[in-house]
């Protein structure tokens, strides 16, 4: 099968031993406590519930055209999930304005169902004048937060609020080998405040290992110098175990990736790769590129964490800001709500 270069699971929080448990307070270990109560059966119950409900994941991909974004998505999810695979455009044209195109898929693996939404941003960075090209993207992200907020403050609301919030924004950096461009810095600086940004170096097969390391170091320094906090953000590390795992990741980002939809025969195995005259680049071989690291981070170990940070931090920030906004709206409020508000104030004083 294709799983050759699996990343050492010491990174993942899955196979890590559970956090050291402090002895329980209270009478948990009273004498004669050899009977099993069954509290830990709740883990199985949760798992059952999760399997039944399924999961949602919304990924946005941002970068100039030609950086292999769609291919990478297809490689990550091992199926044709990108926009291009779905809609066959007669000719590839760069849209006049940035468009936001989202497409959803139902995928299932070993009984686990996931609704994956890939949000593409064709036109980003492709024009001559790219000023404010982050605006439509920012607006889209905020619109999703707004939609969620609206549903949440409904009186009669759904049992499960549909989550269309962007959990992760993958930003594709062209493999120049030098440093970040002003567009990159501007975009990431603004968006890192509202969404989890995962920067990747696209088409990394044009860089040698030394160039790659130098490039990554430069990028990291520039990110630091500009105060850009990409995922995993340092301030959201929960405890020392988390910090340890995440520090290792932070030393490796941005991941230099190569995507491919084609399989080739290498050493008797069929592997995803890119075949050139001078050799075949194996996508999942960590000696060749860091695709496997990206996949593990995004999907196998930190997916839940990415979603948690979106919902409990980014969304909450938006919510606070929104609810604190003074009324700058042109329409005056209809009288009934005003009365009810007065009632509310009176009840609560």
């Amino acid at each position, binding site marked *: 099968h294709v799983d050759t270069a699996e990343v050492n699971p010491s990174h993942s929080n899955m196979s890590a031993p559970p956090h050291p448990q402090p002895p329980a307070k209270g*009478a948990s270990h009273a004498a004669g406590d050899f009977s099993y109560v069954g509290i830990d059966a709740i883990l199985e119950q949760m*798992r059952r519930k999760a399997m039944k409900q399924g999961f949602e994941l919304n990924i946005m991909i941002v970068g100039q055209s030609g950086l292999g974004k769609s291919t990478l998505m297809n490689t990550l999810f091992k199926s044709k999930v990108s926009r291009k695979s779905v809609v066959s455009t007669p000719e590839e044209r760069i849209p006049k304005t940035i468009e936001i195109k989202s497409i*959803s*898929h139902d995928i299932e693996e070993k009984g686990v169902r996931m609704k994956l939404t890939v949000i593409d941003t064709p036109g980003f960075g492709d024009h001559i004048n790219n000023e404010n090209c982050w605006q439509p993207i920012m607006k889209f992200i905020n619109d999703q937060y707004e939609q969620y907020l609206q549903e949440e*403050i409904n009186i009669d609301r759904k049992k499960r609020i549909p989550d269309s919030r962007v959990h992760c924004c993958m930003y594709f950096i062209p493999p120049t080998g030098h440093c970040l461009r002003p567009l990159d810095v501007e975009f990431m600086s603004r968006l890192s405040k509202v969404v989890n940004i995962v920067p990747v170096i696209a088409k990394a097969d044009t860089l040698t290992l030394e160039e790659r390391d130098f490039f990554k170091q430069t990028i990291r320094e520039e990110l630091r110098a500009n105060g850009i906090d990409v995922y995993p953000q340092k301030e959201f590390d929960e405890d020392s175990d988390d910090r340890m795992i995440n520090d290792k990741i932070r030393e490796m980002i941005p991941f230099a990736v190569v995507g491919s939809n084609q399989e080739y025969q290498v050493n008797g195995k069929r592997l995803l790769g890119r075949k050139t005259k001078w050799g075949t680049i194996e996508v999942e071989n960590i000696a060749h590129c860091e695709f496997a690291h990206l996949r593990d981070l995004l999907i196998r170990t930190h997916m839940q964490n990415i979603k948690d940070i979106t919902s409990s931090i980014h969304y909450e920030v938006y919510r606070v800001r929104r609810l604190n906004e003074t009324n700058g*709206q042109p329409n005056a409020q209809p009288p009934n709500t005003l009365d009810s508000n007065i009632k509310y*104030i009176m009840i609560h004083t």
Partner: protein
Amino acid sequence: MAATEIARQAGEGARAVPLAGHVGFDSMPDQLVNKSVNHGFCFNILCVGETGLGKSTLMDTLFNTKFEGEPTQHNQPGVQLKSNTYELQESNVRLKLTVVNTVGFGDQINKEDSYKSIVEFIDTQFEAYLQEELKIKRTLHSYHDTRIHACLYFIAPTGHSLKSLDLVTMKKLDSKVNIIPIIAKSDAISKSELTKFKIKITSELVSNGVQIYQFPTDDETVAEINSTMNGHLPFAVVGSTEEVKIGNKMVKARQYPWGTVQVENENHCDFVKLREMLIRVNMEDLREQTHTRHYELYRRCKLEEMGFKDTDPDCKPFSLQETYEAKRNEFMGDLQKKEEEMRQMFVQRVKEKEAELKEAEKELHEKFDRLKKLHQDEKKKLEDKKKSLDDELNGFKQKKTAAELLQSQAQQAGGSTTLKRDKERKNIRLQ
């Protein structure tokens, strides 16, 4: 602009796509479970029943620990709810268990209002959660959820039917909490009576429209066991923390002269069924039902009561926004008031202290004056004494010179011995 959704087929809207290999998101349930394990769980049980039905003992037996203090008295004036929170741990699962007991339920002569404090308590927990949810800056993921997830209703083992208090209370509670009725101290009922009793109870509940909690049957893995158990409600339980040797094992049991009732023997009572259903199979469902059904109902009613409506999409955020603003202004107002109060208090305190200090100063002055006077008196006395001493000394000197004069005169005039004798005499006189 809003995203254009492409390729939505009729029906669900997302296409089903086959995967060409192992992607790895099948680890998602594990990631979710891990997160919950790190976070810990909480579960809140409310035990409603008359005093003396063995509620505390049952809790002890269920969770295999000894929870709290002594049995309660029977002379409470009203129904109070006492809640205790415990931290239990089994393998790597940490559970914050809260057990709420109704103290004094059923003990009063007039029980019309007995249910009220229970309903109030449940509503208070919902309200606390709602307040947290409505806060502007909120911390929902670290909020300690105190909403009641399960209500164990203890039915007295009369063997006949439900008491009217039971019916009234359960009717008031069924829309607010998951009710699991159990027959307490069921070792007092024989098997045949028990079957009749259960049937009677169930039919009474149905005819009075009481909605008790049904174990969920939509998930195939547990549908069968849950539906079987639904047929065994109400569970007839016996609780005991004492152990008795049966065969070569120590089991939890109640020992009578005519035999021993084993708690974990399914032929003797339904304790195992209760534990299975409450903890091992449906704990998560109980929590979910509480959140998605009972809490949502409470929230809906409360918000409607406050006059909010889902009229049109523009109204909502603004109306709530306005209330947030009002809340904020109120809060600022309160803050200013408090500040003012503190300032006043400070000024007051300073004044008081000043007065105190002045008092002390005055006292000191007085003391000083007194001491000074004392000193002067003493000085005067001393001077007087000195004067008298000086006078005495002068007197003595005068006498001495007079005596010496006489002596020299006597010497000149006559005999020495007489003089000597006189001198001696004078010396003696002068001494």
